[in-house]
């Protein structure tokens, strides 16, 4: 059987958001050959997500983005758009799923910079698997790509500043949400609010969003929690627990959930200084947001260039990164949930694994057994994290529930539910089986 073509580069950057684009440009300008892989048809990532078809209006941040693209343009970076990174196989070859061509592209690189962005946290809730429920981040991508809002009334719930930002976007597009349900109560954390003053950019942004909510009379219900979603009479009915102990019902056609963001190591190869070197950058390394992404991408690029040159670079991070780390810590404190809302309060019939339809009760039964199983046994026998999403939506909640039930479980409940198996995303068998790969790079 003919060996498929393998392209070689000094560095493969995975992820065409702000951090990845900044890293690729920096590496190329240092004289290294660089490929930049992006799973979508255009660069941009989450924050700079570009309109599909170019017709939608820009939401924000366009000036910085154009500056980043200009840096990339002259640098000679080879862009691989529509290429999904599906893993680093055991011979050290990075695999990109070229979905349009139905081929797996093999790339041999001396180093990988992984800049695939953060993971949006969404906690399980009764009814979160229903049609019409999406994530706030997903909704925001939809707004950016189409410039429009899907039809019907929208309700936003969960925790974190993104929910407020999405609500403000919706208002700008003429479609205010019925309410924003917030687990935390930033107004009840004066210490943190005071410290936020050191970050006037954030304060201004927050003030702008909140003013928009106020003028559109969108309630921002702090200290409240979305307890359940049901579908009745063709609409979603959300039960919201209020701070005083009572509850309120909201009807909507779309419910957007979001419980913050966190770094993304999901199935990704571990960082290493042995070749192929693996370094993470941007929100997937540490969820610091757009203000740190460019600096972090460049920082990672300089680290990689130094490692490839065999020199040691002083590991001290950029000042900008330290500043955003402090800012994120303050935001985290501001939005810390005040309600006792948590996994322990979920009813048994709450779906935990949406792919395989496994419930919170199924997991509790396993945890109650006398011969209590470890994480991998729970995964295999409980079929948690075994579905099409490969555990993206349930792995955290499963691990947290196991940790809460048995703090000293063997193997450490802090370990991942899934090992770093590839493909990282389900990949076409036709593509994986194809051995007539284009003779590219020759």
């Amino acid at each position, binding site marked *: 059987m003919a060996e498929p073509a393998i392209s070689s580069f000094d560095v493969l950057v995975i992820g065409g958001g702000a951090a990845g684009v900044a890293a690729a440009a920096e590496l190329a300008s240092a004289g290294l050959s660089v490929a930049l892989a992006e799973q979508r048809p255009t660069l941009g990532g989450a924050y700079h997500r570009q309109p599909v078809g170019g017709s939608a209006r820009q939401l924000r941040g366009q000036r910085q983005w154009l500056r980043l693209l200009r840096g990339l343009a002259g640098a000679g970076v080879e862009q691989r758009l529509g290429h999904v990174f599906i893993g680093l196989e055991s011979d050290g070859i990075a695999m990109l799923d070229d979905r349009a061509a139905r081929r797996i592209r093999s790339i041999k690189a001396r180093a990988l910079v992984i800049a695939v962005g953060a993971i949006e946290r969404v906690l399980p809730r009764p009814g979160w698997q229903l049609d019409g429920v999406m994530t706030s981040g997903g909704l925001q991508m939809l707004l950016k790509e189409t410039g429009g809002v899907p039809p019907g009334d929208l309700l936003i719930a969960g925790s974190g500043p993104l929910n407020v930002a999405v609500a403000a976007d919706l208002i700008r597009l003429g479609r205010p949400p019925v309410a924003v349900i917030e687990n935390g109560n930033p107004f009840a954390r004066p210490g943190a609010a005071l410290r936020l003053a050191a970050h006037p950019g954030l304060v201004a942004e927050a003030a702008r969003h909140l003013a928009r909510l106020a003028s559109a009379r969108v309630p921002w219900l702090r200290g409240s929690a979305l307890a359940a979603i049901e579908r009745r009479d063709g609409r979603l009915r959300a039960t919201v627990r209020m701070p005083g102990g009572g509850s309120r019902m909201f009807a909507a056609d779309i419910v957007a959930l979001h419980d913050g963001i966190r770094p993304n190591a999901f199935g990704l190869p571990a960082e290493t200084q042995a070749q192929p070197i693996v370094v993470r950058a941007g929100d997937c390394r540490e969820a610091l947001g757009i203000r740190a992404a460019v600096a972090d991408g460049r920082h990672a690029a300089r680290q990689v260039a130094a490692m490839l040159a065999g020199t040691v670079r002083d590991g001290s991070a950029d000042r900008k990164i330290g500043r955003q780390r402090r800012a994120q810590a303050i935001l985290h404190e501001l939005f810390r949930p005040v309600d006792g809302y948590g996994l322990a309060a979920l009813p048994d019939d709450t779906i935990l694994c949406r792919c395989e339809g496994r419930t919170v009760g199924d997991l509790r039964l396993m945890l109650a057994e006398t011969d209590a199983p470890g994480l991998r046994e729970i995964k295999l026998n409980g079929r948690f994290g075994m579905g099409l999403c490969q555990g993206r939506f349930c792995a955290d909640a499963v691990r947290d529930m196991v940790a809460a039930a048995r703090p000293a479980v063997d193997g450490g409940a802090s370990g991942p539910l899934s090992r770093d198996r590839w493909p990282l995303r389900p990949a076409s068998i*036709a593509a994986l089986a194809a051995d007539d790969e284009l003779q590219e790079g020759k």
Partner: protein
Amino acid sequence: MGASIGGKTVVVVGAGIVGAATAYFLSRSGFAVRLLDANAPASAASGAADGAVSVASKRPGPMMTAALAGIALYRRLERDGPLGGLFHERPTIMVAEDEHEAETLRGHAEALAGAGKQLRHFEGTALPSYLPSVSAHVRLAVEVGEEGHAIGYEVVRRLIAASGVAVERTTPVLELVKSSSARSIAAVATPRGPIEADHFVIAAGGGSAELLGLSGTVRPRKGQLVVTERAPALNASLPGSLMSCRYLLSKDAILAAGGAAGRRFGLVIDPLRTGQFLIGGTREESGDTSNDLAAVRIMLASAVRLLPGIARLRALRAFAGVRSATSDGLPLVGRVPGYDNLIVATGFEGDGICLGPLMGRTVSRLIAGEDCELDLAPFAPGRFERRSLVA
């Protein structure tokens, strides 16, 4: 406390399918069992196996005999034992893709028929109506009846639950501690301290080799596998598991090379009850559990050639298991020479799921001093040159 042959306490090392089955049968016979695992139940080969409970690929001789008994026991444990719902009966369909393979298959089919297996041959126009989704170039298909499939980790879990034994996880055995007479084992040493018993069973797969000083005899042999997304219609089009004849050839090639050879590819496409497919596998002289694109590509390309519709599906994940293989292709089951209370059961290579329950029952009967209904002579642990069994 002194070890005694008539005693009722047993330490079983290894909570894979063999150890779990041993614990189950011993508990039922009134023994007090402690089941130890360096990691967790089914954490090695039993949890990364293809799940074939099959005689079809066995060579005539002791393994074919054992596999027949193994299947009979699965059927019984499924019907009135702890494995209800876990053993899924379906035929194995061996296919030949060219004339050379067809010749091999015809010869093998004779041996299977001689062992009493129910066979049906499909050739020419009969083939597409029996296997509508299989590629038209297939020359011959032989359906081997009364075979089945069982998921290793599910069987392990059920057997352990039925045994009532709480597995002692993350408890590796560091060494075997001899008694003062040096004719028996007094205890196993673990990081949590020594554990004494009357009898000791080593069913720790590759770990057994290390404990017993058998590393030259038992070798790791890796197998890579791929699992697909669900495809109920294509899944239902297969009456059983598809096994390419090359699987036999890949086994034979390794034996011809004296138990070690380069990487070999067999092909098994198993329609799982979930609607997914399990595609395997390689035979590689390696003990790691990584997957490489070259191997996955070759496996999937041959799967697509045999079952074209599978090209439309997505692969969910690749994984690998490490079999424990011996140089003559037969397992090590029986008393360890020189010791009167030490039994080993390992080296099943790819047949652990098929033979695990049977071997657990066999070991349990050995300990209880009963007739084990299986000729263990071909599996005698002492049949290889006397390496230091227990250093």
